[in-house]
C-alpha cells in the first residue's frame, strides 16, 4: 500500500501550482478560528449596536443631539482622542463618535492579530512546513490567511451594519459605518501581510504592524487636535483617518472604500513579492551569525527576560515619548480650540484651566489603559515560554518557578514604570514648553504615577490566569482587558449599574489633574494587586507545567 501512494505522489508532484492547497488551508484556519473570531465579532457588534440603541433613547430630538455634539466637539480632548462629530444632527454620528476612529483602530488591531496568527505563527510552530511538504503551494498559506481575514472583516462590517440598523439607525448610514471599519481593517490586513514577511517571528509581526497602527492613530489625533482644524488634512495620511473621511452617517464618501482597496491590494502585492524572495521560516533579512558566547548580562532569569523584552519595550518607549510629546503640545492650543458658542459652557467648567485639566486627565487615563496592554503582553510571555516548551529546559536547572515568574513580573511592572516615566517626563517637558508654566511638571508626573495601581491589578489578574488556567490565559487576560476598556468607554452610555462599571480597575484610577486623589482608592487597588500577585505566584508554583 505504501508503495502505491508513494509512486502516485511522485508522479503528481512536479508542477505544484503556487496556490495549490489554499482551500484546505482556509478550512483549517476557519476551524481554528471558530470560537475566537465569533466572540470578537460579537464584542464589536454589541458595542456598536448597544451605543446606538442607547443614544437613540437618550437624544431622540435633533436639538438634543446638536446640544450634546456641540459640547463634545468643543472639548479638544475628545476631538484628539476620538475625532470630532462631523454632523451634529446625525443620530449615527452622535451615537458612534467614540467607536468611529477608536473602533476602526481596534478593527485594524484585530486584522493584525489574525494575519499574524495565520501566517507567521503557523510558520513558527512548523505547521506550515508540515503542510508545505504535502500539496501546498508557495503562496497558499498567505492567500489562505488573507482570504480568511478579509472574509472576517467583511462579515464584521456587514453584521455591524445590520446591528446598527436593528438598533434604529438608518440603513444606508449603518452600511457606511460598517464600511468605515472595513476601510481601516483592510489597510492593516495589507500592512500586517508585509510585516509578516519582514519580521521573522509572529511577535515581531504583531509589534511592527501594531506600531504602524499606533502611529496612524497618533497622526489622526494630531490632525483632529490641531487648533481650528489647521492640520486636518493629515488624516489622509492615516488609514485610521480614512475611516473618518468616509463620513459615515454624514453624506458618506464611498470612494474612500476604493482608496482602501487600492492600498490593501498594493501592500498585499508587495507581501507576495516578498514571499517569493525569502525562505520558509526566515525573515526578509538573512540571519546573521550572532555571538558565540553569552554577554555577562545573560546570566539569570532577569537577564534573559530583559533580553527577550527589550525590543518591545524600546518600541513602546519610543511610542510613549512621541505620544506624550504630541499630547503635551496640544494642551497649549486648547483655548484656541474652544469656539465662542461653547465658551460659556467651559467657563462654567472652570475656564481654560478646567479644560486643560480635563484634556490631560482624559489623555492619561487612555495612556494608563494603553500601558496596561503592554504589561499584559509582557507577562503573557511567562505562558508563551511554557507553551513553546522552552520553560521546561530552564526549570530543569536550579531556577525555581518563583524566580522565573518574578522575573516576568519585574519586566511587566518595571516596564510599565519605565513607560510611565518616559511618557510623564516627555509629556511634562512638552507641556511646560508649550504653556511656559513649570507647574505642569508636578501635575503631569502625578497623573503618570496614579496609573500604576490599576496596571498592577491587571498584571495580577493575568498572573492568576496563567497560574490557574494556563491554556486559557491568553484569552482570559485579553478578554478581561477588553471588557474593562469597554466598560469605561461605553458602559456609562449603556447605563450599566455602577457596581458593574466599578469591576474595572481603571474605574478606580483618579482622573488627574482635576479630581482629588483618594489615597484609600489607590491603596485599595494596590492591595488587590498584591493579593492577586501572591495568589498567582503560589498557584504557578503548585501546578503541572503544561505545554
Amino acid at each position: 500500500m505504501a508503495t502505491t501512494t508513494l509512486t502516485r505522489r511522485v508522479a503528481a508532484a512536479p508542477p505544484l501550482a503556487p496556490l495549490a492547497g489554499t482551500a484546505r488551508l482556509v478550512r483549517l484556519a476557519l476551524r481554528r478560528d471558530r470560537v475566537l473570531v465569533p466572540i470578537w465579532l460579537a464584542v464589536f457588534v454589541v458595542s456598536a449596536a448597544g451605543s446606538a440603541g442607547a443614544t437613540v433613547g437618550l437624544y431622540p430630538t435633533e436639538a438634543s443631539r446638536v446640544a450634546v455634539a456641540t459640547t463634545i466637539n468643543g472639548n479638544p480632548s475628545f476631538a484628539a482622542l476620538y475625532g470630532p462629530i462631523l454632523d451634529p444632527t446625525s443620530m449615527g454620528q452622535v451615537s458612534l463618535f467614540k467607536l468611529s476612529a477608536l473602533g476602526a483602530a481596534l478593527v485594524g488591531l484585530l486584522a493584525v492579530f489574525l494575519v499574524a496568527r495565520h501566517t507567521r505563527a503557523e510558520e513558527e510552530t512548523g505547521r506550515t512546513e508540515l503542510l508545505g511538504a504535502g500539496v501546498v503551494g508557495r503562496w497558499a498559506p498567505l492567500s489562505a490567511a488573507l482570504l480568511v481575514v478579509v472574509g472576517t472583516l467583511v462579515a464584521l462590517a456587514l453584521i455591524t451594519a445590520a446591528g446598527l440598523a436593528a438598533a434604529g439607525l438608518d440603513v444606508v448610514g449603518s452600511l457606511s459605518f460598517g464600511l468605515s471599519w472595513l476601510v481601516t481593517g483592510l489597510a492593516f490586513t495589507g500592512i500586517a501581510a508585509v510585516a509578516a514577511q519582514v519580521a521573522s517571528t509572529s511577535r515581531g509581526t504583531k509589534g511592527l504592524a501594531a506600531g504602524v497602527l499606533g502611529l496612524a492613530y497618533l497622526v489622526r489625533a494630531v490632525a483632529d487636535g490641531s487648533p481650528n482644524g489647521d492640520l486636518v488634512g493629515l488624516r489622509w495620511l492615516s488609514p485610521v483617518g480614512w475611516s473618518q473621511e468616509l463620513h459615515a452617517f454624514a453624506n458618506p464618501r464611498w470612494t474612500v472604500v476604493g482608496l482602501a482597496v487600492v492600498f490593501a491590494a498594493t501592500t498585499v502585492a508587495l507581501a507576495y513579492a516578498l514571499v517569493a524572495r525569502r525562505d520558509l521560516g526566515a525573515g526578509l533579512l538573512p540571519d546573521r551569525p550572532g555571538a558565540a558566547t553569552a554577554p555577562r548580562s545573560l546570566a539569570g532569569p532577569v537577564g534573559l527576560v530583559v533580553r527577550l523584552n527589550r525590543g518591545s519595550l524600546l518600541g513602546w518607549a519610543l511610542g510613549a515619548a512621541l505620544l506624550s510629546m504630541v499630547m503635551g503640545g496640544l494642551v497649549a492650543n486648547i483655548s484656541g480650540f474652544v469656539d465662542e458658542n461653547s465658551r460659556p459652557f467651559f467657563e462654567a467648567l472652570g475656564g481654560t484651566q478646567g479644560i486643560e485639566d480635563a484634556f490631560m486627565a482624559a489623555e492619561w487615563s487612555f495612556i494608563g489603559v494603553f500601558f496596561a496592554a503592554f504589561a499584559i503582553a509582557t507577562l503573557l510571555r511567562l505562558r508563551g515560554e511554557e507553551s513553546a516548551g522552552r520553560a521546561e529546559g530552564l526549570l530543569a536547572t536550579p531556577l525555581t518557578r518563583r524566580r522565573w515568574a518574578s522575573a516576568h513580573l519585574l519586566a511587566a511592572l518595571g516596564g510599565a514604570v519605565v513607560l510611565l516615566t518616559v511618557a510623564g517626563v516627555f509629556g511634562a517637558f512638552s507641556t511646560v514648553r508649550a504653556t511656559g508654566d513649570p507647574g505642569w511638571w508636578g501635575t503631569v508626573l502625578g497623573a503618570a504615577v496614579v496609573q500604576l495601581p490599576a496596571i498592577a491589578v491587571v498584571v495580577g489578574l493575568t498572573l492568576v490566569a496563567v497560574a490557574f488556567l494556563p491554556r486559557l490565559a491568553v484569552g482570559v487576560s485579553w478578554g478581561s482587558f477588553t471588557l474593562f476598556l469597554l466598560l469605561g468607554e461605553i458602559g456609562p452610555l449603556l447605563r450599566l449599574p455602577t457596581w458593574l462599571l466599578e469591576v474595572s480597575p481603571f474605574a478606580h484610577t483618579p482622573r488627574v489633574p482635576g479630581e482629588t486623589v483618594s489615597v484609600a482608592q489607590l491603596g485599595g487597588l494596590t492591595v488587590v494587586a498584591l493579593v492577586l500577585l501572591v495568589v498567582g505566584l503560589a498557584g504557578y508554583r503548585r501546578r503541572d507545567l503544561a505545554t
Partner: protein
Amino acid sequence: MSPVIEIHDLSKSFGTVRALDHLDLTVERGEVHGFLGPNGAGKTTTLRVLLGLLRADGGTARVLDADPWRDVATLHRRLAYVPGDVALWPNLTGGEVIDLLGRLHGGTDLTRRADLLERFDLDPTKKGRAYSKGNRQKVALVAALASDAELLLLDEPTSGLDPLMEEVFRQVVAERLAQGVTVLLSSHILSEAEALSHRVSIIRHGRVVESGTLDELRHLTRTAVTVDVRAVPTGLTGLPGVHDVRVEPHGTGSRVTCEVDSDALTTLVDALAGAGVHGLTSAPPTLEELFLRHYSDDLAGVR
C-alpha cells in the same frame, strides 16, 4: 549507598489518560539505565515528574535523596536534563543558550564546552531559529554534558542525530561515566540502549514490565532453533519451555523449527536424542525480539 533514583508506585493521570500506572524504577549510582518503551508509554512523563515539572498523583519518587517536587533549587544543581523536544529562542544564539543554562547551573566548564562544541561539530553563532532539529538537540546536549551534574536525565537524546554524531554522543557519555556520572536514558531504540546501558527497564502503558541487566533480559528471550532430523520424536509439542513447534518434510527426513526459552535448551536437546539429528542451527537470542514482543503486545492491546 542509596540508589540515585528510586521510584515506588508512581501514578500520574492527565484527565482520563493514565500516563503512569504504579510505576517502579530504581537507578543505581554510576550506571547508564536504559528506559525503553513505545510511543506514549510514559517515559517523558516519568522524567518530568523526576524534575518536579509535573506533580505525581500518587507514589513516591526520590532523586539523589531529595524530593523532586520540593527541593528544586538544590536538587537541580546536581542534575542536568535534555528534553526530548528541544525548543530554543528564535533570536538567541546556540552559544548564548549554552552559557545561559550553564550559568543557571552555577558555572560552565569552558574547556569542556569548547571540546564538546568541536566534537559535536556545532556552530554556536547561529540563531535558534536557524538550527535544524539535530542541531537544536546538540545545543541541549552540549549544555547538559558540559555541566558538572552527577545525574543526567536524557530524553531520547539521539533522536535527531546522524550516525556519526550518535557515535560521538556514545563516546562522550562513556567519558562522563568514567567520571562517575549516572545516566537515565530514555529511548525507543534498543540498539542505543544496548550500546550504552548497564541496565534496562522496559515501560509500557505507564508500568515497568521488565527490568534488569542486559544479560538478565537476554535470559528472558527465546532461542530460535532449527533441527533437521530423520524421525520426529514424539511429545515435542508438549515440552515445557518449547514453543511454536513446526514440522515440515525436508529431504528424506523432517525439519523442526521452534522457539525455546533459554533455560529449556537442555530439555530440547534431551528430547532430540536418538532422533538422528543431522543438522542444527540456533539463532542467538536478541533483545530485539523481547522488545518487539512487548511492542506488539502493545499494538494488540490498542486494537
